[in-house]
């Protein structure tokens, strides 16, 4: 398995709220090849975000196995998962979640504080990430001085600054207008195509699906459909 292969085998996830048990994933098996761009779609409550959280090591499956590269996530401690996440996964959220009192550059630098590197190295990485997302001229602006699209670009830069193997995006265009959404999706496509990142993106937006090589539809916690995007057929990874 290559560094960013993702493999879920018979994964179940049950949330308990009092006496009620809610099944979010019900025996899902899925393989995402390294370097692919997979879009996860489905109605609310279908288990999209749960899938993303399991792959990102933010949550543990009730049953089944989740493997990302060589890491068997369900067997790792919380401390181990946290350390693994900081090096191998970049998260992008719908609401960006930037620290409002820090500048764009400082927000991007945040994950690097966990690494043993000099300030000069950190600044160099931040500049590179800003160049990739096209925000070099806005590096000293605070989130309140940026548009929604620019904030999401900063969030994307924060996700890629550690050079992770996998980028997990949870509704990255959910709070943006159509034109800005397209810019963000194009940027994610660029990260995939140019930098070879494995991208798993949850979205409700059909336009987002067009950017993925493969669209996985979930419904009630199980795989409903797994569709190859014809436009990317030459580079798409085959579903398991």
């Amino acid at each position: 398995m290559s560094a960013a292969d993702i493999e879920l085998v018979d994964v179940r996830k049950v949330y308990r709220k009092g006496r009620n048990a809610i099944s979010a994933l019900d025996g899902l098996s899925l393989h995402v090849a390294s370097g692919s761009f997979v879009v996860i779609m489905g109605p609310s409550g279908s288990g999209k975000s749960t899938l993303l959280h399991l792959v990102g090591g933010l949550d543990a499956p009730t049953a089944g196995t989740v493997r990302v590269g060589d890491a068997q996530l369900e067997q790792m401690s919380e401390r181990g998962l946290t350390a693994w996440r900081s090096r191998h996964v970049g998260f992008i959220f719908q609401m960006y979640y930037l620290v409002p009192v820090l500048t764009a550059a400082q927000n991007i630098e945040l994950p690097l504080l966990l690494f043993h590197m000099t300030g000069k190295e950190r600044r160099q990485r931040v500049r590179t990430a800003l160049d990739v997302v096209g925000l070099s001229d806005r590096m000293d602006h605070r989130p309140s001085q940026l548009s929604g699209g620019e904030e999401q670009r900063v969030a994307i830069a924060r996700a890629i600054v550690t050079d992770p193997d996998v980028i997990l995006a949870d509704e990255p265009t959910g709070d943006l207008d159509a034109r800005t959404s397209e810019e963000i999706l194009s940027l994610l496509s660029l990260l995939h195509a140019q930098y070879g990142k494995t991208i798993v993106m949850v979205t409700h937006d059909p336009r987002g699906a067009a950017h993925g090589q493969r669209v996985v539809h979930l419904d009630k916690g199980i795989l409903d459909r797994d569709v190859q995007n014809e436009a990317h057929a030459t580079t798409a990874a085959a579903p398991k």
Partner: protein
Amino acid sequence: MTLSYVLMQNLRRNPLRTALTGVAFALPMAIFVLAISTVVMLTKTAARIEQQLRLAVHHKAGITAFMPEGMRRKIEDLDPNRQRLLAVCAMRWFGGRIPDTPNPLMSLACDVDTFPTVYQDVPMTAAEVEQWQHERRAAVVGDGAANQYGWTPGSRVVLDSTIPPYQRLEFIVVKIIPNASPPNAFYLRRDYLLESLQARGLTGTGCNIFWVKCRSAAALRTLQKDIDALFANSPDETRSEDENAFIAGFIEALGDIPGLARVMATVVVFIIALVAGNTMMMSFRERIRELAVFKAIGFPSSRVFLIVLSESLLLALFGSLVGIALGVGFLLVPWHNPHSESISAPEVSWIAVLGSLAIGLTVGLVAGLWPAYQAVRLRTTDALRQVV
């Protein structure tokens, strides 16, 4: 950028709330510093006075009434073997002031022979005692007055008396009393004063007070009774007062200050704990998703715990330092009139300063512990799921 920079920036997230919380810390801390400094001062004063074992004997009619100087010998004869008393020093109010200045110094004419014995809390070297005894114009002055008028040992000082017959006398400073109480004390020789009066044809030799230096607290109590009994039914009936009792009575008249200070300290700690705890919980709740993102991008729980706790400690440190600065500043500013002091003004107490800092940081720690613990327990997925 470092994590400490992030912490400092977080305090600027809501400047008004940070400022108000800081003030909520600072004002009680300032009051705490003032209260504890006052208690420390009173305690020191009481301890210092108690050590002196001095009895003040004045006319029953009041301190302004004169008593014959011969009463000193009668008091001394109560204890011819000197088993209860060490010495008796007669004093007469001079009421001197620097010419053309408004405020009189606390100037008292004292018996030259017994002054060093009765006032052992005025530490005089053998040379200074000799100067006092051989220089008729000798004056022993408090450091407050010396600093104010630039006097040093050897300085010539002219004072005008503010009471009849208003004579002007010249003095030579032989001793400056460090940490004098009161700071504007000015002790001159009574024989010098009497000679100046005689030179003007005045023969009055009366005294306003006899200070009796006792050997022990028990001796002081018996002498107090014996002296008043000795002069009972005479033209010069006396009222003897223990110096400590007098000051203690004065302090008690102000109320149970140490008790009040303890209550105040408890209330202060309780209030700022509530304020700080509330602020930290509000701050935590506002940033719950942001902290979840911190965890998502790889910040371990221990680091998140420290971030939240450190913010609380920083806020507490900021508020405490401002409060201490306010309290110390108030104590250092010469807000009091040195000429009107009967006891020392409160001084900056390191006990109060360090105590305030310790209390502030403890409150910050306690206030931050719960939110920090909540941050550790925070399930990233639950926090993020609130939106996505």
